[in-house]
Each structure stands twice: as C-alpha cells, then as structure tokens.
C-alpha cells in the first residue's frame, strides 16, 4: 500500500516533477477558479483556454515544441482575446459572454489551422492535452512564477475583487478601481491557463481551475474558506490523478481532471450544502 502510494514519487524524477508542478498549479489555479465561479464566469475560463491555442501554435510553428515561445504566444493571444472581448462588451450593448464566444471561436479556428498546417496530429494532441509527465525546468519555473504573481495579486486586490463581485455599482461609486481590477483578474486567468497548459493541455488546464472551485461551493459559504477547500481538492486530485495514471497507464492530464470530477460529484451529493443534506433535512426546526 505504502509502496503503491509513495513509491512512484520516490523512484522516478519525472513523477517528482509532475507532482511538484501539479501541486503548485493547484495552489495557484483553484482560488482563481473560485472567483471565476462567483462572478458567474465559469465558462469564461473554458473559452479563454481555447483562446490561447493560436498563440501557443504560433510559438510551436516557429520554434517547435518549446515551452518559452509557446507560453509567450499563448499569453499574448489570451490577453488580446480577454481585452478585446472586455472592450467590446464595455463599449457596446453586447454582453461579455457573446463577445467572448466570438473572439475565442475565431482564435480556436486559427489555432487548429496553424498546428495542423505545420505539425502532425500527434503535436496537436500534445498542445490540446499536454503532458504533466514531461515537465522540464523551464515549465516548472513558469508554473512557480505564475503562482507567485497570482498570490501577490490576490493579496493586494482581494478587497476589490470581493467588492466587484458583490456590489459592483457600489464599488464604482466609491472608486475607479473596478475596471482595472477586472482586467487584472482576466490577466490572472490567462496566466494560470498558460501555466497549466504545458502540464494539462489547453483543453484541460481549465479543469484544475473550475472543478475544485465548483466542488468547494458545496462545503462552505465563505470566500476564504472556499479558496482553501478548492486548493485542497485540487491538490488531492493532482496526487491521486498522478497515481492513477501511473498504475493504470492512463494519460495523466485526464486522470487528474477526472479525479477532480469525482470529488465534484461526491461534493454535490454529500457536501454540507450538497443535495443529500438538503433533501434529508429533518422536519424538526427551531422556533426562531
């Protein structure tokens, strides 16, 4: 038992790197996911994840499968899409969901076109689904950097993020910080997705962001606690997903996300704010 759980991480360098990378990602992505969920932007993360593809593809076409150019490309295109859709929705009647859908669909089409033009379907699979087992030093450095930036930004802008979610009109009446904070937040989303895509691929990096966050909602009604619970769920998913992938020879990215999915399903059922406790509440009640 001990051998099965700890052994792979002790024996193999690539497993240690995978563990380290996915744990740091968990700590960084999960709180961002919580805020995405609270701002009803859960699907925005997904759209942004698709949107970074052409940037990564340009890096890939020019430099091959290398982390630095692909990351920079993804970052630039991700920010362009986030800013573009944000600007369209702020200055026209179109809501952000529609403008974002338009931007990311264009982006995704360009991305797939670029990768299939220069690469093989194997390359496309790699970009789309990543490989946490092949994290090199550059990728790990990037992930740690993203996590540090995320935590600093969250610490500084926490109060503004909460106010912007809870009562945006109030925030606008007392401060001009609303719009900058929104843009900073979108930047953090893109940074975390870019940080995650080498490990999990563009399609699944959003999974480590949203699934633990969505699951945490079933356990608490307090933002800080939600972030902590989401981080714990993401970390558990990372460790068990890696072990599952090692022992059952499954691809690691989907294994991690699927584990998070199982935790989500269980939380939805038996979480303190989940379905069963709500349905089974006894008829006894307090008088006041």
């Amino acid at each position, binding site marked *: 038992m001990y051998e099965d759980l700890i052994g792979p991480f002790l024996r193999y360098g690539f497993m240690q790197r995978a563990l380290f990378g996915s744990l740091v990602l968990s700590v960084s992505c999960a709180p961002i996911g919580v805020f995405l969920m609270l701002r009803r932007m859960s699907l925005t993360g997904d759209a942004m994840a698709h949107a970074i593809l052409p940037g990564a593809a340009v890096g890939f076409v020019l430099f091959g499968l290398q982390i630095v150019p692909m990351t920079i490309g993804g970052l630039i295109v991700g920010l362009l899409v986030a800013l573009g859709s944000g600007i369209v929705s702020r200055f026209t009647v179109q809501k952000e969901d529609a403008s974002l859908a338009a931007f990311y669909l264009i982006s995704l089409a360009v991305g797939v076109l670029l990768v299939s033009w220069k690469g093989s379907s194997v390359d496309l699979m790699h970009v789309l689904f990543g490989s946490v087992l092949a994290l090199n030093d550059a990728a790990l450095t990037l992930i740690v950097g993203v996590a540090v930036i995320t935590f600093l930004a969250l610490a*500084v802008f926490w109060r503004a993020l909460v106010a912007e979610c809870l*009562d945006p009109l109030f*925030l606008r*009446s007392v401060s001009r910080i609303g719009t900058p904070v929104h843009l900073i937040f979108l930047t953090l989303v893109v940074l975390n997705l870019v940080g995650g895509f080498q490990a999990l691929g563009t399609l699944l990096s959003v999974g480590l962001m949203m699934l633990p966050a969505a699951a945490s909602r079933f356990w608490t009604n*307090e933002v800080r606690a939600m972030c902590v619970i989401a981080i714990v769920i993401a970390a558990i998913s990372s460790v068990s997903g890696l072990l599952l992938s090692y022992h059952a020879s499954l691809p690691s990215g989907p294994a991690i996300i699927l584990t998070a999915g199982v935790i989500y399903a269980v939380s939805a059922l038996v979480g303190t704010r989940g379905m069963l406790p709500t349905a089974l509440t006894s008829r006894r009640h307090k008088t006041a």
Partner: protein
Amino acid sequence: MSNTCLEFRNLTLGYQGHAAVHHLSGGVQRGSLTAVVGANGSGKSTLLKGIAGILKPISGACVPGFRRLAYLAQQSELDRTFPARVIDLVSLGYWQKRGLLGRLTAADKIRLSTCLDAVGLTGFEKRPLDSLSGGQMQRALFARTMLQDADLILLDEPFNAVDARTIADLIVVIKGWVAEGRTVLCVLHDYVLVRDHFPETLLIARKPVAWGATSDVMTSENLRKARSFQEAWDEEAGWCEDDAGREGQTCGHDHHTHLPRQHKIAGHV
C-alpha cells in the same frame, strides 16, 4: 464654503445619445432632504447615477460641492447569492476611508457595531447574506451607508419591498443624517411618505417638472404633467438643439469647458 451641496448646470444624462434626464439646472442646499419623484423610466435612477459619477453627462455638468458621497443603488443591483457575511458587506462602507489595503482599526470595528445597532441588526454580524430578508438587507445597506460618513447621501428606492416597520426605522435614520447636517437625495414612489417626511421634492419626467417645497410640487396638476411623458425611445426623435440658448438663460456662468453636444429628444412632456 458655499451653501450649495450640489449644482446642476443644464445637465443632460442618457444612454447612447438618448436623453434620460433633460436639461436639469438648479442647486441642492446643504443639509436639505429632497425626495426625487417620477414615474418608472422618468430618469430618477439615471440622475442618481449621474451624480455618483457612474454615468458621464451627455452635456452640461453636475458641479459637486460635497466632500464625500455615499450612493445606495437599488437592492436588485446586488448579488445576494455571493458568499459573504453581513459584516463583510457593511465594512465595505469604509472603502473611502481605508481604501484597497488599509486595515480596519479597533475603533472602526466598534463604530461598525454601533451602526449595526442603530439599524437594529445587532448580532447579525456573522449571518450570511442569503439568509437575510429584504428588510434586513436594506437595514444592512443603511449601516454601510452610515459608515461611509458622507455629506451627500443618494438613496435609490430604498423602501422597495420593505415592510412598514422597517420603513419607519429607516426614515428615523435618514432624519438623523439630515439633523447631522448631511444632504440626502432619495428616490421613492410612495407619495404619502414624500408628503409626510420630505420637505423638498424634485419631480421629474425625463426633464424637471417641478422642484421646490413638497407642498408646492406635489400638486395634482404637476403629477398629471409628470405622468404623461413618452417612455419609449424614439429613433425618429429630433435632435435637441437648444443647448446654447438654454445655458444663457438658466445660469450666468461661463462654460469654457462645456461643449454643446447633440442628443435626441424622445418626446415632449
């Protein structure tokens, strides 16, 4: 310091070129309590948003003579499912004083408790927002407004979906603010409340219909006038070109910064 807390100079506010509040001029006296009355869509909320700086004027200006402003939007603008406690919501009232990073001092926390007590929410600090009734929510928002310590307070339909007892309690709070010398503008629909408690009234229907002492403003003739205005936008509406003429009439100031701009007139009252 002048005795005017807020001055409108030919203020026109609206959305995408369509005026929602038309050519409003006049001043709000420091320490006055004014009701803003009008039908749905008459531009009341738009006016408050304009004063709060959330909406930029199409033309004209809203000249501030106040030190700090507190704006309480309609309750529906707030996300009540957000996982926050009463204390989290109320302490947002310290934003102007403490900013993004400033920590709340022990004195701040004591004052917060005092304010919660003043609105009858003692012991509600840790209650989640989604467990509050409409009246309790409004009480919490009043406590937040209190913490803002503003000299101009804007309230947008604070008594919507609130029971009589809560209204009575909150009216006491509002009168307390006025007694402290603060200026209050309050949007409301209940004419009885307006006549009983608000000395001044601004009656609008896209443009000012009457403004002054409540008994002079709330006449049946004025109210009839205020009811019959065109609520829908009219793409065919003509351009309002009387900026230059009106400015000369309404106030004798120079407007170096003001550029006359066109906006559509939806219809005439």
